């Protein structure tokens, strides 16, 4: 009887503990894994900074995680709604009306509406330091026509106005409670999918904004780890200490490293068409390059396919267009010329140069050009310069590669103190207007960026295109490209691909529309 009693007692206990143990064993890992899921770890080349929307200090790529614009730059330059659900441009182009999203709050709980939007826009629009943005320069007034309706009145039409509203800063929206008494930003509080919870010089930690109006990320936190060294970044990805690296403005991945990483089965490399072009530019003040035929001889001596194969390891497209096709209004494609050393020599002869041994002479002067490069300004440019030097030497054009630091190139480029140099177009979302206005118009102060080429005739063509509206824009933009080609004002070389890499923990990796943004919202994570 005692045994029966014991077994009667024991059985339910046994069952109870078995069920409990099973539950603990099954549920605990689920709960603990949910709690302890590692954040998505993305490498960044430099610290994030304070993310002040009005200062030119912080890393551009982090802004888009925290702050939203009215309009977003989408695939191939398509304008997509963000904080504005719809917009309308008046026929004369001087009135931009926006209907704002109504279910949005900043991450500190402050509601987003026409008043907060207007307060944000008035922080920078019409201010002299933001005159480089056309819509700011032309702003006359900002009206709130309803709780969620906003109108920007301009003194003149700004055809690129909507594109300007997609750039990274200062156009994004900050909580009005995140400023001090003088109006200076005190914290990065936006309406975006992520909230900054820790920010120092070694990392930035973000947590999901659970009140985000758009599709919320599937994981709860993200760590941006500052790793300035490219080799250390790729090792970190391969060892599992990082999940994603890449992007010119996030944590650049060189073509050579990308090619090596393709052999690692635990890493996936993504190479997609880029939005920038690398250009060989001619100084308009160089006496040796005044004759267009010399510039043509240089262009004819260049083998772009070899540059793509050797310098870019195949991760680039040879081009003679100023902009790649993914850029809006990038114009008709120009057929890639074949390298032709014989024709190049013939051009030099037509220009009055005489062959003497392995060099060209004219009025006792040797055709020797200085190619100024800075590895800091454009990574890989020294090797590229050496390759161009080799290619031009076959024609007999001597090239002296002058490798300088970033500060020197900043000083010399604006005053055209070189014969040849490399430049890059700005890329999406700044192009085509950014490059055309800043790097081709002689009257615009582009500071240390310098100019691709300047010419009074070109100024007229560019200005006319920038002012054009509607279908006329396509024709007038094409006129710029035609002028550049007809005058051999610049020699575009390649359009590098956008290179990223991620490890097997990352799923559904999709590149953002521009390299100024960070992947993350659509990504899924597995442990």
């Amino acid at each position, binding site marked *: 009887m005692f045994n029966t009693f014991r077994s009667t007692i024991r059985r339910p206990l046994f069952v109870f503990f078995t069920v409990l143990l099973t539950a603990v064993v099954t549920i605990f890992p689920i709960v603990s894994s949910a709690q302890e899921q590692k954040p998505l770890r993305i490498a960044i080349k430099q610290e994030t900074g304070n993310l002040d929307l009005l200062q030119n200090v912080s890393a551009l790529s982090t802004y888009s995680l925290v702050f939203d614009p009215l309009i977003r730059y989408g695939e191939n330059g398509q304008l997509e709604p963000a904080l504005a659900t719809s917009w309308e441009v008046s026929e004369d182009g001087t009135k931009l009306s926006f209907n704002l999203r109504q279910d949005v709050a900043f991450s500190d709980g402050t509601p987003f509406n026409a008043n907060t939007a207007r307060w944000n826009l008035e922080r920078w629009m019409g201010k002299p330091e933001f005159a*480089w943005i056309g819509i700011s320069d032309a702003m006359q007034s900002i009206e709130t026509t309803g709780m969620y309706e906003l109108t920007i009145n301009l003194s003149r039409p700004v055809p690129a106005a909507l594109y300007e509203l997609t750039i990274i800063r200062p156009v994004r929206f900050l909580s009005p409670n995140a400023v001090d008494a003088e109006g200076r930003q005190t914290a990065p509080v936006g309406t975006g999918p992520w909230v900054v919870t820790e920010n120092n010089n070694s990392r930035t930690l973000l947590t999901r904004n659970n009140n985000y109006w758009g599709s919320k990320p599937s994981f709860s936190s993200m760590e941006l780890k500052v790793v300035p060294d490219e080799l*250390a970044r790729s090792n970190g990805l391969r060892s599992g200490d990082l999940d994603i690296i890449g992007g010119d403005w996030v944590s650049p991945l060189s073509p050579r490293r990308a090619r090596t990483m393709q052999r690692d089965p635990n890493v996936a490399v993504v190479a997609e068409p880029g939005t920038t072009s690398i250009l060989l530019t001619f100084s308009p003040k160089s006496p040796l390059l005044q004759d267009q035929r010399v510039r043509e001889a240089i262009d004819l001596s260049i083998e772009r396919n070899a540059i793509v194969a050797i310098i870019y390891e195949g991760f680039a497209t040879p081009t003679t267009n100023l902009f790649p096709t993914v850029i809006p209004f990038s114009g008709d494609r120009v057929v890639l010329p074949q390298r032709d050393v014989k024709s190049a020599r013939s051009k030099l002869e037509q220009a009055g140069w005489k062959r003497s041994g392995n060099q060209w002479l004219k009025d006792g002067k040797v055709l020797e050009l200085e190619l100024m490069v800075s590895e800091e300004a454009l990574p890989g440019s020294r090797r590229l310069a050496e390759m161009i030097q080799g290619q031009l030497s076959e024609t007999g054009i001597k090239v002296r590669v002058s490798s300088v630091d970033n500060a*020197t190139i900043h000083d010399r480029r604006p005053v055209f103190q070189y014969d040849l140099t490399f430049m890059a177009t700005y890329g999406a979302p700044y192009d085509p207007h950014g490059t055309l206005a800043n790097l081709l118009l002689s009257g615009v102060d582009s*500071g240390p960026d310098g100019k691709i080429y300047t010419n009074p005739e070109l100024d007229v063509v560019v200005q006319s295109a920038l002012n054009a509206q509607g279908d006329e824009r396509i024709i007038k933009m094409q006129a710029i490209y035609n002028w550049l080609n007809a005058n051999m004002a610049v020699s575009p070389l390649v359009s590098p691909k956008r290179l990223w890499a991620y490890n097997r923990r990352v799923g559904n990796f999709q590149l953002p529309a521009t390299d100024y943004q960070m992947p993350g919202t659509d990504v899924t994570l597995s442990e």
Partner: protein
Amino acid sequence: MFQLIARRTLLALAMILAASALTFALISAAPGNVAALIAERTAGPAASAELVQSIADDLGLNDPLPVRYGRWLLGSVNGNFGESLRTGKPIADEFAERAPVTGLLLLAGGAIAFTLSLIIGLLGAISNGGPLDKLLRAVSLVGASAPNFFVAALLVMLFSVTLGWLPAFAGSSAASWIMPSLTIALFPMSVLSRVVRVNLQEVMSRPFATTGFAMGYTRFGVLAREALPNIAVPYLTTFGAQFTLMIIGSIVVETVFALKGIGAFFIEAIRFRDFISMQATLLSFIVFFVFVNLLVDIICLLIDPRIRRQSNA
């Protein structure tokens, strides 16, 4: 004794002044316009020539070099190094955040170099021409010849990428400091172990070592009891020099292991032509060099009466 220390301290201060003047002049002579960089930071693409000029006037960049040096030195003595052109933060704040990282790295590396160099040197001396002595000599030679970045890359490839034992970046856990500390310690450890080995060999041929053997001590006993104290001065002097040189090594090690210390700050300042940060960091390096060497000098004065007598004479 006090006079000796005071004289050494004055000499150290004079050295700091001379070295800081030289570095200030060299950095000022380098190409690049500080005002243009500040203008670019504040106004972005809107940075105009007028803005650059007004910034140059505000900062007194057009003043003569000695005036600028005096102003900078006075500010530095008061802890005001200016603002970083790259981050916009006060450099003193950057130092306060980063000094513990570099300090920990140097202390860990210094401790490893100190301990292992003595062990290796002593083992070599015990083996005295045997296979172990030869092996340790070869290890020291390789350690002294291998550059930091190469050693760091090999360690990461082996322990992080291949074996997955240690994190590729430092700072996340105690284990994450192992590879950076070993990397930075390798060169000084190799040099110091040779200093120990060679000096022990020399000391062991002296009469007091022979007396030790005659008194019945083993080779290890003579080495530990008689020889080691006699190499303290050359060892400490070399250790001081090697320890200060580790700050140069920290530039590479911090970059490779993603540590945000003073070394990484310096290399970022160079990369971005952040002249103000470069000058401040170089000044901190100079002070560090001079301070550690002064400390070693004082320790040597304290432990070796012969130096005190020589200095007094």
